[in-house]
Structures are given as structure tokens and as C-alpha cells.
């Protein structure tokens, strides 16, 4: 077994390295807070670097079930228009509907498959297209679209790599959703914890000023909140910052209880 690093023999080695580098780059961005569009744009650009394609883009389905372009290897109008068109027909739509890969190795001007999409793609200089599904456990959330300048389909190795890229993109999006949900829950938890602290502090203040125990003090705060239609935590905050004096708290409650 030769453990020496192989000399770079041109393309195959470089390609392998850039694929590995792409995965490292993608997983790196997954770790912390990340922007999904930025990550998917990196992915589209890397597709062009690594695979035998001229342009790449990712389309995701929105809440209304429509496909929308989220990232593209270049921002040229001609390319973006090709994605826009696919709201009605084209490789992405077909891929999304079938949930499987779509290949069209030779687009023609009078294409029966995609009569509107194909001439426009040819105008933009693309002669063949493919789309790979972004799928997880039976759910298709979008498609990776690859455009080639020449005829024919991608090699099997390129197809496998492209599908791996699409899979990473899918995981990135799902991870991002999980983090957003986690953020919402954590904000809620923080709020609950802080509210509890404020209420305990207010209980202590009222107890000290009016010579009550904690239970009596809590009842007084709660009664005031209820009779004034306020949230307990807001009453507690007012007590702590001094804007609500304990005498007024007391007076109201006494009148109510009388």
C-alpha cells in the first residue's frame, strides 16, 4: 500500500479535492447560525466548478405549493428567466411532480415536451438540462437544476455527486427549519424563566413592605392584576421599577375585598 500522496494527475484528482472541499464547506456552514440562501448559492456555484455543467440553480416549493428559485450560480437575467418559466413547465416542475431525476439530453426549438421552456433555454445557450429532486423521507421540497452547453447527459459519477449535493442542500434546509423552531421555543422559555424571576422579586418586595408572607404577597399581586385586567408579570415589573407603589396595590385590594 503506497501511503505517499498521489501526484496530482490533472483533472480527476483536482475534481475529487474540490468535491471534498465543497462538502467540508457546506457542513461547516451547517454548524452555526447560517443563512440558507447563502449556503444554497455556494452549492449552485460549486456545481458549476465541479460538474460538467454551465449553470446551476435550486428551486424550492413555497407554502402555496409553487416552485420558486432560491439560489443560482449566476444572477444573469437570462438564467433567472429560465427558472421563472418553470413555474409552468420544465425540468424542475417535472422533477418536483415525479419526485425522480429528469434528463433532457437534447433540447430542440420545436420541443413537444416543454414547448415554451426549450426555445428559451436554447436562446440562452443551453442544449441539455437535468433536474435532481431534493427529497427526504418521501417528501420532495424542491429540485436542483443543471444546465449544460453541449448535448447529452451527465456522466454517472457526476449524477451521483450532484444528487449528493442536492441531499446536503435538503439537510441544510431542514436543519435551518429545526433551528428556527428551536429559537422560537427557547425565546419562549427565556421569557417564562425571566417572568418567574420578576414575579418572585415583586413578591419579596411586597412581603417586606407590607409584612406579608410570600403566599399572601403573591395573592395580593394576582388580585391586583386580575381586577385591573393586567398580566401578572407586568404588575410585577411595575412593582420592581417603583412605578406601582405597594400602598396603591394594597388600597385596591382592600377595597375589592371589603
Amino acid at each position, binding site marked *: 500500500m503506497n501511503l505517499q500522496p498521489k501526484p496530482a494527475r490533472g483533472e480527476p484528482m483536482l475534481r475529487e479535492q474540490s468535491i471534498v472541499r465543497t462538502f467540508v464547506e457546506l457542513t461547516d456552514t451547517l*454548524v*452555526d*447560525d*447560517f443563512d440558507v440562501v447563502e449556503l444554497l448559492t455556494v452549492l449552485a456555484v460549486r456545481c458549476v466548478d465541479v460538474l460538467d455543467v454551465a449553470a446551476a440553480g435550486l428551486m424550492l416549493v413555497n407554502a402555496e405549493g409553487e416552485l420558486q428559485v432560491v439560489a443560482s450560480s449566476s444572477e444573469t437575467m437570462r438564467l433567472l428567466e429560465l427558472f421563472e418559466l418553470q413555474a409552468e413547465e420544465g425540468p424542475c416542475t417535472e422533477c418536483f411532480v415525479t419526485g425522480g431525476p429528469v434528463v433532457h439530453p437534447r433540447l430542440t426549438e420545436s420541443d413537444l415536451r416543454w414547448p415554451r421552456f426549450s426555445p428559451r433555454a436554447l436562446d440562452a445557450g443551453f442544449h441539455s438540462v437535468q433536474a435532481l429532486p431534493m427529497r427526504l423521507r418521501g417528501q420532495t421540497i424542491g429540485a436542483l437544476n443543471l444546465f449544460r452547453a453541449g448535448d447529452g447527459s451527465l456522466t454517472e459519477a457526476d449524477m451521483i455527486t450532484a444528487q449528493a449535493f442536492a441531499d446536503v442542500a435538503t439537510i441544510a434546509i431542514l*436543519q*435551518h427549519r*429545526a*433551528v428556527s*423552531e*428551536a*429559537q422560537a*421555543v*427557547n425565546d*419562549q*422559555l*427565556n*421569557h*417564562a*424563566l*425571566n*417572568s*418567574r*424571576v420578576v414575579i*418572585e*422579586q*415583586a*413578591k*419579596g*418586595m*411586597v*412581603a*417586606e*413592605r407590607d409584612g406579608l408572607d*410570600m403566599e399572601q404577597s403573591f395573592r395580593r399581586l394576582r388580585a391586583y392584576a386580575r381586577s385591573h385586567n393586567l*398580566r401578572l*408579570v407586568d404588575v410585577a415589573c411595575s412593582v*420592581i421599577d417603583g412605578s406601582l407603589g405597594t400602598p396603591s396595590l394594597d388600597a385596591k385590594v382592600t377595597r375589592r375585598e371589603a
Partner: protein
Amino acid sequence: MNGAGIMLMAGDIPQGSLCTTDKVSAFIEESQFALGEGPCVDAYHLDRPVLEPDLANPSTPRWLAFTGPVLDAGVRAIFGFPLHMGGVRLGALNLYRDEPGGLTDQQHADALGMADIATRAVLVMQSNAPLGHIAVELASGADFEYVVHQASGMVAAQLGVSVGQALIRLRGYAFGNARSLRAVAEDVVARRVRFDGVSGEQDPQP
């Protein structure tokens, strides 16, 4: 490992202990809550594991107030692992041992896995809680040191200062008298200790 505990943090400060396996772990968490420093606090703020394999002879001295009492309690190695998911941070998992020594790679990996499970568990439990409330499953068995906050409110009223300043006074008193913050807080709430020197059995004023 001799013991473990999970500490929740919110608003950048320890909020209390979710669970602990033994008395020493409870003491570790209480000390971090009282002093605002320690491996869990650092793990939370730095968002990475904080490892101290030899607390008695640390390579970098840190946690000046925390270290002494915890050593006295028999802790020799201590580790904090953040509870986080992406950029979301919840608190930290604390592990300790009564002998010095680092974690093996396997132990380190296991600790990361446990912190991950704890994070998910907290999020799942809290996601079902009504707005503004801590999930019942989280609150039961947890110790959020409510008595300390009650005492802060009382001391604030006694001295006419903010609750934040009152907490600092409580901490200062506990540290200066080598008592736990909780014990001092309990004395304040039971009206055995006053901070305004009016009519307590003990007078904490210097």
C-alpha cells in the same frame, strides 16, 4: 464520572438547575448560580465544551471564587458542555469527577451526545408549554432558586435599591460570611436577617 447536572441559562445568567444526580452536582450548580462563574457559565457563553481535568492545579487559573469551595466539596475534574442547537443556546451540561484526569475521546463524544439529547428533550417539553410558562415537566424536580429572587425583592425594599443591586448585596454577604447564597436568602425570607440594620437577630452591616 461521579455526577452530572443540567443548568438552564436565560438572559446570559444562570437561571437554575434542571436536574442533578447527587449532592455535589447540586452544590456545583448552586455555586455557579450564586457566583455567576464556572464551567457551565463558560460553556454557555463560549458555546463550546469547557474542560478542566485538574481543578486543583489548573493550567489556566480561572473561576477564582468558584474553585475553592468546589475543591473542598471533593471535585477534582470538571467539564461543561453547552446545550445548543445551531445558534440557539439553552444552558449547559455539567460533569464532575473526584479524581483529576481528562476525558477519553469516547467519553467526550458521549458527553456531546448527552448534551444533544438533553437539548432536544428541553425543547420538546417546552414546545408544549402555554405561552409565558415553563413546561410542567421542566419545572418539577428543577430548582430555579426562587427563594433568592424573593430575598432580592425584600432586600431591595429594605435598602431602597434596585433588585439587581440587592442581589449583589446578598451575594457579597454570602461570600463574605462563607455561607451559601440560598441559606442567606432563606434567612432573609424567614426574617432572621435584615440588611437595613433595623431589627434583625444578625446585623449583616460591616
